[in-house]
């Protein structure tokens, strides 16, 4: 019922339903407290209005029901915290899939678009050096390194195969952006200078909207071109092959 009431959007990732479950549980706590107190509140206002209750009682409520209520709320919160939020978060943030089983992609945000860099057939991004940082090479990739040369880069389109663990390494060229895909229940800030990993397993094919969820300048609202395309493995493979045809795309990083 609460699920309906909240009108939670569609879920397309493995951990998404856990997020929703926690949402539902917290909202039950909130709902019960709200309704309970509202009833008490309205009843009290009606019963003790001065036209009826001519004289107030100096002592008012006696007894300790309220203490129990407070203990109850605290316990409920403790359960949600220890039972749900902490372990589930740990799963999302710490329990990374083994790199060999996963698809690893670098996400580089910029004003106002998304770059996705795939390691290509060899599964490696190649050497990086601070000394190589330049306008056309923000991450100092060593272009003479063969591991770099077969990297594949796309603009605003992230293709991933369904059912496979995906690891994204997010960062930004300029200001802070936030990579948010509502149906995947993924939100992660992209911070310049940092490389922040996140992971998820998409479980429904489709094309999903990427939202930039952090104010990043006057184009923030319009930074809406990004999509995550979840394909079947086969379609994904085809796409990848077509992209890396000709011995890897000339990676410009722009």
């Amino acid at each position, binding site marked *: 019922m609460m699920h309906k009431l*909240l*009108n939670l*959007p569609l879920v*397309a990732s493995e951990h998404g339903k856990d*997020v929703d479950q*926690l*949402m539902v549980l*917290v909202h039950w*706590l909130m709902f019960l407290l709200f309704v309970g*107190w509202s009833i*008490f*509140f309205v009843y*009290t206002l009606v019963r*003790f*209005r*001065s036209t009826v*209750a001519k*004289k*107030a*009682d*100096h002592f*008012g*409520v006696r007894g300790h029901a*309220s203490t129990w209520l*407070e203990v109850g*709320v*605290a316990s409920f*919160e*403790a359960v949600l*915290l220890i039972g749900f*939020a902490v372990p589930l978060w*740990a799963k999302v943030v710490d329990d990374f899939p083994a790199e060999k089983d996963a698809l690893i992609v670098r996400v580089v945000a910029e004003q106002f678009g998304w770059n996705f860099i795939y390691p290509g057939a060899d599964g490696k991004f190649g050497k990086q050096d*601070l000394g190589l940082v330049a*306008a*056309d090479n923000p991450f100092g990739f060593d272009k003479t390194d063969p591991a770099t040369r077969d990297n594949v880069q796309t603009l605003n389109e992230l293709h991933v195969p369904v059912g496979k663990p995906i690891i994204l390494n997010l960062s930004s*060229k*300029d*200001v802070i952006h*936030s990579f948010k*895909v*509502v*149906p995947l229940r993924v*939100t992660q800030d992209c911070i*310049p*200078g*940092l490389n922040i990993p996140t992971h998820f397993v998409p479980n429904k094919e*489709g*094309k*999903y*909207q990427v*939202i930039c*969820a*952090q*104010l990043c*300048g*006057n184009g*923030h609202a*319009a930074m*809406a071109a990004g999509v995550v395309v979840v394909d079947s493995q086969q379609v994904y493979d085809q796409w990848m092959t077509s992209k890396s045809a000709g011995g890897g795309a000339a990676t410009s990083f*722009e």
Partner: protein
Amino acid sequence: MSLHAPEHKHSEHAHGHGEGDPHHHDPGFWRGYVFSTDHKVIGIQYGVSSLLFLLFGFGLMLAMRWQIAYPGKPIPIIGGFLEAALGPVAAGGVMTPDLYNAFGAMHGTIMVFLGVVPLGFAAFGNYLVPLQIGAPDMAFPRINMASFWSFLLGGVIMLVSFFIPGGAAQGGWTSYSPLATMIPTNGQTWWIIAMVLIITSSLLGSVNFIATVIQLRAPGMTWMRMPFFTWAQFVTAFILLLAFPPLEAAAVMQLADKVLHTSFYLPTGLMAGGNLVDISGGGSPLLWQHLFWFLAHPEVYVLILPAMGIVSEIIANNSRKPVFGYRSLVYSALAVGFISFIVWAHHMYLTGMGTKISTFFQTTTMIISIPSVIILTCLFLSLWGGSIRFNTAMLFSLAFLPMFGIGGLTGLPLGFNFSDIHLHDSYYVIAHFHYVVAPGSIFALFAGVYHWYPKMTGRRMNELLGKLHFGTSFVFMNLLFFPMFVQGIAGMSRRMSDGGASYMVTEATADVIGRLSKAIIDANIGISTAAFLLGLAQVPFIINFFYSIFAGEKVNSDNPWEATTLEWQTPTPPPHGNFATAIKVYRGPYDYSLPGAARDFVPQNEPVRS
């Protein structure tokens, strides 16, 4: 209950003292009303200026709400004026994204730092705290005056910054670096300078409040006899004293980044427009966030504690009974103040935080919700057994309870990092905190204005207009903010200069999942309409406020609400020096409806018969 009429006091002193006592000369207009050191005058100065800032901040938001509802359409009425005043950022009377961002940052800043805090803390606190503890003035009257002028100067600089080339700061009220530093205009520089003045003002004010409460309590005014309002102000002052300096430090560093081209918050390899930025690098964007939220989380309790103080005074008075659990209220307020310093990173869950740290911060976040629950529970239970009078002040105070309840409860899903994944930076957050600050704090502040107006002016505000103000504000506030929860859960992001229209499903994007439905976007129109109506709903208040100064019903007693606390035991309005005779306190703050007492209230300065 009046001890002496003010005129009486004046003449008595004129005879009693010789030339040597300068305090009792007529201070004249400038020293009496403008550069006054009297805490009551300063309180009123703070009050009027912060109400005006609130109105202005609301005005900014009304323009923004137009843009959200009707993106790209020229703003009616003021559009032409904006274009004339601000130039190309408002070309054709249409709000450009730059202007939207500037207005948004300024709305947040002005509402928080120039509106609600100065009104709740500085205005009500200044006027009432010395009165409630039986002190003749603040401990450092001249510093008090300096505090006000520093505040006003900061406010004026903030306002002037709209008119500099490029306009005001556009980085959000949070001013995250690198964005705040990299926007090529100077708005941010002005913002920082204004903030430094405002911070200075708060520091001066909080030193004064704490010293006053500790040193100047009248004989018999023990800690546990202080009204809860004064306690709330005391805790608030500590928060301001200790949480603001780190923001000052952070602001100085951001200023250096902006004007000296240092790299405190700018990492190596930063690019702008496809080029490497010419800086040394080596800084950290997260450092700013930590320092900012180290202030800004405690700051939200600065927004709410004075409001809670006001509400508990009014509820005790109008239900004619003591607040329930005075001690738990006091301890909870102290606990909130204390814990508020160690929860700040719940605003930063999605900056790549690991499990250990986010566990620490979400645990403290849950812990801090408990004292809030206790405070609210106590206030609810206070009503039980009362004899409740429904005047305007009480109506606003009563409405505060469920409104703060909604705001506070919706803090919980944000406080759990795992559900925050879905809600972070969505309209759910906007709805959460507006429920606590707008129908929460602002309602409490309205209540305070209605309640203490007779003490400040000697006249009451009109009840009919007051109830009209209340009823309409209550309805429109809820119509305004409740739908935002729905929008937020559906995935609508905040700070969208087109109200999220870029993310709406269209024919071209029908195959993309996770875009916003038309219904969600169209809700913007309803919300904005509610905002405009909320604006209209303030008209009776503004009329009432000014009209009543001259033509309000005169109060025929110094204690029209038959209250127990000391501010009502002074002449109306209280003279310079506050109490006509030395005051002594014999009892707790809320001796309402004492069994066996002749009246249903016994003032704190009435001796206990035995």
